[in-house]
């Protein structure tokens, strides 16, 4: 048993340390910026719109969230399953009765019911919803947090610009490695696992020694890549600073609040996300996985909805109470919806044709739904929105220049949000 526990510990540690997926291109596009992250920010001329949001909390439903069982409930017998529309705090807006707590927070939500893509596989859909780009050989696209670091810099020098909780490490895309989100394995542990296993005196002594013995080499080879290394050392040492450790420690939150969030990993992740945006982390992603269990049963959908409901509702209420909702945009999305019609196996399959996403805070006007599907939840009536539109909307909210061209490998041009359109209704 002890060994098992040890193994677990290692796994979490590894997950946490999960390396930057160094997918940067053969040529780093901004070589002169490597090791000089601040210069990148300073150099950028902002042509973006005034920001309505300072931070983003990206809540991702991994595996495909059934729109019918969550934000787009129907009464049609063929599709409704065990879910039914529930009246909410906002008149005219109904969500599934699987989400009773969230129903009390709908005044904050703009529910987009007209999301649509053509990508029906998990890996492809996941990539698309996280980057706004289709997966292609030869390019690795950055996620929003990395784009924001490129355009807007790092809000704090002692904190990472973006953090991903329990979702592996997507890497920096075509930006330099320091633009990668910082991966957190277990929200309960924060970054404690990373702290040196030796006493502070020994640690400091070693750092001093390394600096002393490194100096001659650094003076002989004052090149960009060597400087970048010493910068990473300085930065890492800062991470061991008590204020950073503290920012990552959700146990510093009042017990009552922790209990309101709940003790699931997802709930703790949301609490950590709130704590991090409070401490100048601009972008935090939290994942709730397991939605794909819906292939075989409708119960799985209900179970997942319940796991989502109270923690997510608490996050919104908590952000609001702390006055953070004004400046924090919360985005909830997934790779695709699930078939409205119940499958022969009694579950729902992948359905990219129509699904839902949710926006709240950061300038979003709550208490509305945008777009709609027909009675069978199958066809979108009117305008459809894709991942590019969602990402352009987020970029717009953060004040990023969505028209500014970035050159990736071979001179290929890229735009944050991949030239989607801003979902204007969300802000009005």
């Amino acid at each position, binding site marked *: 048993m002890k060994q098992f526990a040890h*193994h677990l510990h*290692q796994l979490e*540690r*590894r*997950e*946490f*340390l*999960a*390396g*930057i*997926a*160094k*997918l*940067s291109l*053969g*040529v*780093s596009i901004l*070589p002169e910026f*490597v090791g000089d992250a601040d210069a990148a920010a300073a150099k950028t001329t902002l042509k973006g719109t005034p920001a309505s949001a300072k931070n983003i909390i990206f809540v991702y439903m991994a595996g495909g969230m059934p729109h019918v069982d969550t934000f787009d409930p129907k009464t049609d017998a063929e599709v409704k399953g065990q879910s039914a529309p529930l009246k909410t705090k906002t008149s005219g807006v109904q969500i599934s009765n699987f989400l009773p707590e969230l129903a009390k927070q709908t005044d904050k939500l703009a529910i987009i019911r007209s999301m649509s893509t053509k990508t029906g596989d998990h890996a492809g859909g996941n990539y698309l919803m996280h980057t706004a780009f289709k997966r*292609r*050989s*030869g*390019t690795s696209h950055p996620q929003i947090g990395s784009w924001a670091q490129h355009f807007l810099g790092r809000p704090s020098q002692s904190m990472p610009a973006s953090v991903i909780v329990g979702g*592996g490490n997507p*890497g920096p895309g075509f930006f*330099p*490695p*320091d633009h990668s989100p*910082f991966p957190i394995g277990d929200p309960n542990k924060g970054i404690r696992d*990373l*702290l*040196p*296993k030796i006493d502070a005196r*020994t640690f400091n002594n*070693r*750092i001093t*020694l*390394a600096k*002393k*013995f*490194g100096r*001659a*080499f*650094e003076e002989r*080879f*004052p*090149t*960009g*890549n*060597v400087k*970048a*290394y*010493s*910068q*990473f*050392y300085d*930065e*890492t040492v800062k*991470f061991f600073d008590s204020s950073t450790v503290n920012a990552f420690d959700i146990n510093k939150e009042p017990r009552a609040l922790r209990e309101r969030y709940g003790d699931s990993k997802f709930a703790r992740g949301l609490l950590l996300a709130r704590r991090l945006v409070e401490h100048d982390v601009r972008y935090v992603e939290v994942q709730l996985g397991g939605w794909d269990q819906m292939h075989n049963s409708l119960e799985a959908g209900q179970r997942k909805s319940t796991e989502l409901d109270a923690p997510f509702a608490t996050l919104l209420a908590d952000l609001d109470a702390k006055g953070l909702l004004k400046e924090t945009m919360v985005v909830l999305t997934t790779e695709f919806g699930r078939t409205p019609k119940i499958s022969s196996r009694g579950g729902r399959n992948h359905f990219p044709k129509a699904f839902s996403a949710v926006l709240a805070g950061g300038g979003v006007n709550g208490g509305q739904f945008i777009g709609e599907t027909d009675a069978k939840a199958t066809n979108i009536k009117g305008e459809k929105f894709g991942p590019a539109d969602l990402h352009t909307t987020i970029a717009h909210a953060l004040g990023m220049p969505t028209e500014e061209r970035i050159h990736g490998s*071979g001179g290929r041009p890229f735009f944050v949000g991949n030239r989607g359109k801003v979902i204007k209704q969300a802000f009005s």
Partner: protein
Amino acid sequence: MRIITPTIFACAILNAVVISAPSDELINEATARINAAVNAGLAKTKITYNVGLNDHLFVRRVYTDLAGRIPTHDEVQKFVKSMNAGKRDALIDRLLASDGFVSHNYNWIADLLRIQSQVPGTKLRTDAFSFWLKQQLKSNRPFDRMVHEMVTAKGRIWDNPATGYHLRDNGMKLDHVSYMTKAFLGTDISCAQCHDAPFHDWTQFEYYELTSFLAKMDTRENLQKRPAKPRKGKGKAAVTKKDPKSLYINRNQAREHLAKKHKIDTSNEKGQQQLRRLANRFNRAYREIVAANELVVHSNPKAVLKLPDTYEYDDAKPGQVVKPRAIFGSESKSRTTSERMRFANWLVSRNNPRFSINLGNRLWQRYLGRGAAEPLHDMPEPEYWDNPELVRTLQGTVLALNYDLRAITKAIVSSKAYLALASTSTVKLNEPYFFPGPVLRRMKAEQIWDSLLTLMVEDPFAYRRTSGKTYNDIINMMDTGAVPIPEFVKIAERYNAYKPDSELIDRNGRPVSAKLSNKSKKGSDEMMMLRDARKNRMVLARASELPQPAPQGHFLRDFGQSSRNFLVDAATLEGSVPQVMELMNGAATQILANRNSLIFQKIKAEKTPLKRAEIVFLSILSRKMTPTEQAMMVHEIKRGDAALTDLIWALLNTPEFMFIK
């Protein structure tokens, strides 16, 4: 007697040509030509070579670049103390013939071909392919022959491991071709997959023409065909037609068999649950085994390649069938040869300039830190080369030395440019560079890992990965075809019990997962070391023997090992916070600072603190202390043995350890 078809015959001739290793004179001539080309470039810009390497720098440089790891304390001492005039040349030759060179070169090719331990999207293990590549490198198979064999390979991975190359990109032919041109031709055509490439000359149509050479190649065959349903009525007896190749079995019958075999009482909920678990486990194994058997590189004569429905240019219509045509170079139009054979012939042909330029350029970049034409995977046209003569000379070297990797490497590492100190200022990619010496480069992830290994254990090759025969023997069902359900259940059991690490074995054939024996060599330092590593869930084997690529969160990945996913040349050399944390607090560093490591054993052999410090310097940085450093150490050492642990830690965390100066 079998009739030898022209295709096989042609292939046999090509392979039968015994290319004798290039003579030393030929290699020396090549080096002289490289020197002349670099000299000319430097003279034009009035730059002089950086200073040459002293013995300490030389021994570290060639071990790191050729054996893929830093030299040990003893190796440094032995070399430096040797009075032999030809010792440098001799060392290069010895390292080129070493296992370290094979391992290090394998890492390079594995990156280039994006090798993963399993064929993506399936569970088929590719150890046989990796093993085959290492054998090719060990026997110094000419690079063009090796590529030709991979491109024309047929069959399943256990019959013909070279098929691992095409299987890697199973189900994504267009992508496969674009990876291929990047790796072997230094040409990026991936833009043209969806539209005419705006920055190049080729069009989407040409991309399809090139891919069309492989139109008839298929990497998967369906082995799950159900027997046709017996026709009812018509008075005839029902006949079940069976596909002789199909591995289809009736899962309901399998379930019944499992219930009987495990004597499960399905009348209660508990029994049903137990059976469900067993059946699920069996079904998963069944699916994976069948899917692995389905992977076979073969020819489908009827297959054609069509333009996509979204094709929007005037030169052809959407959905139109595309015929094979090469994008440059000259190709044979022979009708007797298969299209894939024609393609392979064209690819590696001496008349295809980009194939030879690509290899020369890639090897140059490996040792000098920068290509003579950049970027590697998309070399520009000659007018954009900083020193066109150098590129052509490297190409000439490749051709003159007949794609002999050891000979080409020898020619490069004997050049004046390579044997000079790395440049001391930043070399920007968008500025010309004429190679007064190598660019200062960080070791690759694999070099750092293998170097740490050198500091920990006496024999870094204590564990090697086999050709995966145990695994292949379990899952290969092509000799038996469909087997009765009880037999299949047994196969699935063996399959589920299989552990990949059982094929990572030591010199005595014992797997790494075996219990470390307490009897033999009881308490030996090496044993203690392996035990400590095990506690930290680390396998002390060379990067080339570990899972491909190492899993997320492994030291190798933190230091930029390629994820072997969507990019050729995806390994990175940049720093990151997790990397620094790994080096500061990671398991590897902790183990190294432990008393059983090789470096500590060396230290123990010395008596005075200063001598001990000297060992640490020679082991980690391959050099002696400078007077300044000595003075610092004298001060530190007053703290006793703890100072040595701190020193090891500190030196590992200096850029001097990680960068190849």
